[in-house]
């Protein structure tokens, strides 16, 4: 049973979350893009702002709609909160006798309530959960952040020029992974409940039930976002891409894309499912201690494939091939899913506008475009 949260009640939501001890993060305009930052008042939201996205291009414009979530996405959402760009893992100290003590450095901060994650972000979080929480080795740091995160998703009512979540079946409407999911309609939001925490939160706000008109409007919004997408991943991002890629490792397209690729790693840094990292030692000057930290790395760096004095992937061609074959191909072998959620970030934030759907289409001999359906 969906509820209705009026615009006037949005600050009540922030107040309630704050009272529950959460640090509230929400979308805001900063330096020309939508980023998530501390949110204490609804006026901070990006009212009326809309993103224009093309390969290697992102601009915000004021739209005629005075809505808070009229945009598609920004460079980051959930990933930097759970899989931190830089994080200390442990530290070691040496006492007077020369004995070493290792201490785990688990994070310590308030739980976070994130308002405004998109369906693609939640799909990506589910994939990162598989990578970092399942199997023999659970990442304690990721787990800590994950257990201290409340997600209030907002369904898209608009798709950016690089969005293709319809073809990856990961949006534009969130289906799981949220505590609450909002869809912006006239004068407020239709709210769906995703967890007990979400339910008690919405009950504390005394929200009314959403009328049939409002829920129909919400559905129409999601459909509109879906219909306006013109980009698609070949083979609808299915397991078939794995075999296509692995059977085309000598395709001439790899060399062509390598001529354009800067091997800078921007695509992997903005990708919400990329998890590669390196670990570095930060010793103290007196030589009696050291902090062991990890940082985001990328398959586009030399360090990523450096083994025993040799860099295995020493050319851009090899690195781009690693990125695409893993993301869309061998990810299936490893995690039984594609590594792509159709958010289009790698396309937008590539400084030279390389589009992975276009590259995949060239190799698969398929199209990466679709007609607008309305």
């Amino acid at each position: 049973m969906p509820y209705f949260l009026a615009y006037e009640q949005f600050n009540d939501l922030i107040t309630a979350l704050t009272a529950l001890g959460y640090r509230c993060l929400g979308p805001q305009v900063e330096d020309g893009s939508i980023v998530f930052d501390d949110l204490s008042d609804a006026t901070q939201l990006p009212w009326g702002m809309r993103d224009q996205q093309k390969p290697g291009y992102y601009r915000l414009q004021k739209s005629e709609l005075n809505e808070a979530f009229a945009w598609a996405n920004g460079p980051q959402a959930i990933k930097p909160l759970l899989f931190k760009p830089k994080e200390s893992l442990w530290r070691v100290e040496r006492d007077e006798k020369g004995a070493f003590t290792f201490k785990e450095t688990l994070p310590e901060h308030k739980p976070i309530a994130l308002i405004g994650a998109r369906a693609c972000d939640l799909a990506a979080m589910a994939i990162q959960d598989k990578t970092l929480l399942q199997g023999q080795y659970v990442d304690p740091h990721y787990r800590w952040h994950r257990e201290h995160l409340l997600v209030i998703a907002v369904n898209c009512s608009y798709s950016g020029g690089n969005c293709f979540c319809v073809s990856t079946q990961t949006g534009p409407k969130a289906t799981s992974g949220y505590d609450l999911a909002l869809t912006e309609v006239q004068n407020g939001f239709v709210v769906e409940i995703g967890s007990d925490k979400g339910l008690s939160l919405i009950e504390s706000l005394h929200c009314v039930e959403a009328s049939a008109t409002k829920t129909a409007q919400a559905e129409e919004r999601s459909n509109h976002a879906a219909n306006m997408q013109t980009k698609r991943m070949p083979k609808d991002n299915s397991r078939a891409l794995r075999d296509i890629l692995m059977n085309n490792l000598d395709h001439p397209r790899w060399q062509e894309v390598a001529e354009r690729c800067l091997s800078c790693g921007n695509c992997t840094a903005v990708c919400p499912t990329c998890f590669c990292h390196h670990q570095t030692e930060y010793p103290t000057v007196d030589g009696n201690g050291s902090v062991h930290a990890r940082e985001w790395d990328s398959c586009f760096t030399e360090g990523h494939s450096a083994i025993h004095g040799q860099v295995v992937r020493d050319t851009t061609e090899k690195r781009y091939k690693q990125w695409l074959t893993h993301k869309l191909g061998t990810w299936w072998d490893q995690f039984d899913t594609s590594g792509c959620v159709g958010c289009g970030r790698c396309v937008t934030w590539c400084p030279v506008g390389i589009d992975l759907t276009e590259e995949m289409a060239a190799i698969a001999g398929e199209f990466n475009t679709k007609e607008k359906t309305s």
Partner: protein
Amino acid sequence: MEEIKPRIAIHKFTSCDGCQLAFLHLGEDLIRLAEKVDIVHFVEMGPINPTAKVDVAYVEGSISTPEEAKRIREIRDNSRYLVTIGACATSGGIQALRNFADTQSWMKAIYATPKTVSTLDTATAISKHVKVDYEIYGCPVNSQQVLASLLSLLQKVTPTARRDKVCLECKRLGYACVMVTKGEPCMGPITHTGCGALCPSLGRGCYACYGPAENINTDSLTQWLSSLGLSDAEISRHFLFIQNSAPGFKEAGLKLKKKKTP
């Protein structure tokens, strides 16, 4: 018996003195460091002993005079390890722009009696003259870089530094890409990391003061900058700036400079 501490020296050649400040900027860590090592020559800080035998010599500046060409060889002979710091020492620095010009004609144009000025026709990196054990990029280098190199050497470990592009650091720090959001020319995708993405943090493009990263694609960046509306001459100046004589930058810049404008 008093412990014998490793001895270090900090030498200066043709440069602005800014990289040496990385040591002074260490603050309290400089005091801790001074307990571990003897700083025997560091004019900017006080001690002067230019011919001392040392374990590690840090060298700032490029070689631009006959006297410097001689002095660097003496320093090499006196040092177990030689580490260059900064753009001047690693690639020649801004003054290496003279390598693309006729030094003698400039001398005549500027000095009343050019004969009294003793200078070489070029300003070149230390590695063009003597064996360098380790190079630290930057204009200027920062305290954490020099400290990390020295701590590694003190622990008898080969210093390592990531040679990634500035972009990754920008993304880790959550800075908006100035090229994607504003169409602002940025050299970040070909520039060596280490500065903490200082310029993009202030909303401006990277100007490549840390020199080339590994595996750079100057042709592709040139093409993109051109599509953003920059002329060949403007793009050329982006390459031929502080790190004008660094490998990759020099070739890319000169190629554009020579290109005939249609």
